[in-house]
């Protein structure tokens, strides 16, 4: 039989422990039980719950001491919280959760994992060499799958990621990207100040942007660390008129290059 969760020991829905009492013995130490799921028999007679106490998960304490030689049997039932037998089927008898050769398959239109905890809600521990997570299309194996391998490398449409993030295809970002602590950007700038663009990137700067060489539209390439090592190259739209300037402690002038 297969199980979800911790496999119970003993592997059954209930377990039984017997004790031979000593004179006036009241406390019997069991191997452990789930509180509320304990039946106690004394010499074959089931005791009322008022005749014993079983609240600490291990000891059964009689209300009055036993006689030497009495046989106390403690039946500890599983509350089923960690024991589910597979397969689990839906109302039509189709497998929802099944197991075969160590592979557990969940078949559902939607699977939801919901929780509210300060710890990891879903944790995948892969100690072997296989991938930790694979998202495939209808093809299996899918050579363009989304993959998180066993060391955390992510492949997007790349089944064997060779970098921490390995993407085959178009990657779209609506924010800057951070490379070795330096931002790279690309956007159309219609207002503001060209002086403020010190991070590497590719920009279209419209005539409303101040501190462009002249009041025209420019394609501006910036090589910069975002602070004090910056070069801007600006080419006026639809021309080869090109200027360059740099910034260290202040901006240099724009120097025209195409003459």
């Amino acid at each position, binding site marked *: 039989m297969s199980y979800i969760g911790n496999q119970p020991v003993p592997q059954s829905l209930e377990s039984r422990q017997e004790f031979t009492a000593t004179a006036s013995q009241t406390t019997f130490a069991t191997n452990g039980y789930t509180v509320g799921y304990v039946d106690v028999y004394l010499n074959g007679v089931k005791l009322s719950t008022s005749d014993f106490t079983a609240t600490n998960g291990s000891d059964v304490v009689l209300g009055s001491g036993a006689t030497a030689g009495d046989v106390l049997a403690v039946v500890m039932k599983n509350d089923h919280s960690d024991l589910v037998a597979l397969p689990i089927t839906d109302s039509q008898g189709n497998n929802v959760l099944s197991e075969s050769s160590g592979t557990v398959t969940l078949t559902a239109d939607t699977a939801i994992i919901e929780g509210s905890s300060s710890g990891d809600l879903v944790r995948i521990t892969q100690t072997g060499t296989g991938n930790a997570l694979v998202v495939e299309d209808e093809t299996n194996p899918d050579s363009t799958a989304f993959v998180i391998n066993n060391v955390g490398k992510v492949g997007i449409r790349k089944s064997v990621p060779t970098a921490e993030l390995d993407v085959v295809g178009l990657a779209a970002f609506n924010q800057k990207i951070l490379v070795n602590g330096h931002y790279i950007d690309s956007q159309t700038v219609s207002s503001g100040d060209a002086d403020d663009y010190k991070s590497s990137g590719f920009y279209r700067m419209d005539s409303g942007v101040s501190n462009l060489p002249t009041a025209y539209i420019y394609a501006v390439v910036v090589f910069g660390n975002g602070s004090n090592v910056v070069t801007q190259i600006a080419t006026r739209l639809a021309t080869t008129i090109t200027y360059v300037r740099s910034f260290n402690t202040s901006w240099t*002038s724009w120097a025209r290059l195409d003459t």
Partner: protein
Amino acid sequence: MLGLSTLAGLVGQDSTPNRIFMHLYFKDDGKLFLRTKVSEPEIENSYTKKLIVPDDFVFTKTVTDSEFGELQQEMNYDEIIQALTYSEKRAVAYPPITDQLDNIFHNGIDAWKADIQAIKDQFPKN
């Protein structure tokens, strides 16, 4: 301090072949903003402070930065005027050679000498 009016000869002249000048455009606070070897007619009226200097004029000064050491920093308008030598000012103010030859042809040597002398007088030897 040389005023803008006394530098009239440095402003507004176009470069011609064999006469390469650098056109400098300054912000109102005197900071150099744009430099080009050709005039930029479209922006001429946008700047009240502008100069034409010989192409080989060194318009930077050395400053020391705590992180980067010695840096070349561009001089501002007043500093450039101070740094220009009389010969650099004259070089920009002299008409192109072709114009001077034409002047000699039409007006004679004396007229040409008078024009040249006027420039020398405007920018006397230090």
